[in-house]
């Protein structure tokens, strides 16, 4: 089986499982809608203009909501030693990791679209007039987040602390995603030209590349028995 087919098999399996159970999408989707409701009461719209802080709220909601789903990346396989089966199959370790990253990325993309929709509806936001650049910023940002989160999810699910450990491992490394993601999103929301966020997109791309690459190399040491 070719490398891409192996990877594709993992992606397909995870997406189909998610599509059938809707476990993680439901948890993350419910979380994001509820956070939107809570933000409405936590922030006094007569004092703070929602449009001005929307980018930060959206990104924090994606990160927090994403942690819920990422923490459960390997929870299904932990039951009845299913992960041993995957490890025993003739699939390269890095293909397993990359497959998991792609599946998580697809799931988180759906959740992110939901976050944008819900926040636009609740707070009457305007997303500026550069949808392609905005999508580029958001997708590169969550790719970096997912790459780190998937690797550390494999670690945290192997510890006795489980999911509670995940934010402590992931959040310190999310600084570049938050800084470049939020500033670029704010800039685009304000309708400023795309050239303003060129540097941000490059940095988000660099972070995603480093994260995916280091995860692919290091994953085999995490799952080694």
């Amino acid at each position, binding site marked *: 089986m070719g490398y891409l087919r192996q990877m594709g098999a993992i992606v397909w399996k995870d997406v189909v499982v998610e599509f059938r159970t809707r476990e993680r999408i439901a948890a993350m989707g419910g979380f994001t809608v509820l956070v939107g409701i809570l933000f409405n009461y936590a922030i006094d719209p007569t004092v703070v203009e929602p449009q001005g802080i929307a980018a930060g709220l959206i990104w924090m909601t994606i990160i927090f909501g994403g942690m819920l789903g990422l923490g459960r990346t390997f929870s299904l396989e932990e039951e009845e030693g299913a992960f041993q089966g995957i490890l025993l199959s003739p699939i390269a370790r890095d293909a397993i990791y990359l497959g998991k990253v792609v599946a998580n990325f697809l799931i988180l993309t759906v959740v992110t679209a939901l976050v944008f929709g819900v926040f636009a509806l609740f707070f009457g936001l305007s997303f500026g007039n550069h949808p392609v650049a905005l999508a580029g910023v958001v997708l590169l940002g969550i790719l970096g987040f997912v790459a780190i989160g998937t690797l550390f999810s494999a670690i945290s699910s192997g*510890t*006795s*602390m489980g999911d509670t*450990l995940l934010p402590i*491992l992931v959040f*310190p*490394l999310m600084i*570049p995603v938050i800084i470049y993601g939020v*500033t670029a999103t704010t800039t685009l929301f304000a309708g400023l030209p795309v050239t303003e966020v060129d540097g941000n997109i490059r940095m988000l791309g660099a972070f995603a590349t480093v994260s995916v690459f280091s995860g692919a190399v290091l994953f085999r040491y995490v799952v080694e028995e």
Partner: protein
Amino acid sequence: MSSRIRWSGAVLGVLGIATTLVLHWMVFFWVPTERTMGVVQRIFYIHVPAAWVAFMAFGIVAICSAMYLWLKDERLDMAAASAAEGGMLFTTIVLLTGPLWGRVAWGTWWTWEPRLTLTLLLWFIYLGYFLVRSSTENPQRGKRFAAVVGIVGALDIPLIHISVQWFRSLHPAPVVMRPDGPSLHPDMLATLFVGLGASTLVFFSFFLFRYGLERMEQALAHREMVAEAAPRPEGVTS
């Protein structure tokens, strides 16, 4: 072997303590007072060397971790863990002395100064390193997990550094004092170098003691295992 490690640790420790005493004499009695910041600037000679050691230690953690994953030599993991412990200590010193100085120099306990922020994040990466290490039932697994955390942290530190630097240039803080320019008074520079020497010596002394302790623990565990496996002599019950 382990006695040689302990002896080296002791020698470095004595040198480190001696240099630290000299440093304190220089800081309190010898070095001229900085003109704009006054006496509080003298924290600089503790703070900067501690930061240097904290980041150097993290470099050692990353290199030893990567080599551990590659060569599977237990000694490399012990070295990484020992460096991480020393590094966390010095990171804590940086985080305690920074705000003390900042309160006077910047007029606030905490500011999102890039290097201070980076050090705080480094502290949390060290915390993750130890939590991962201590929360696995299988110690071998914990060592590999910790090594991965150490390597990913070290790869991300430059990106975090660039981003907090960039964010700062975007949002200048209200009360900012220029970091000391290159034109440092020669006496101040000398004191700083003594400080760097002192903290480096103290760090490597800690490191060697900690490493020697790990080696002794391992040897003890090994001896216990052998004793259990060996058949007991006739008539001896325990």
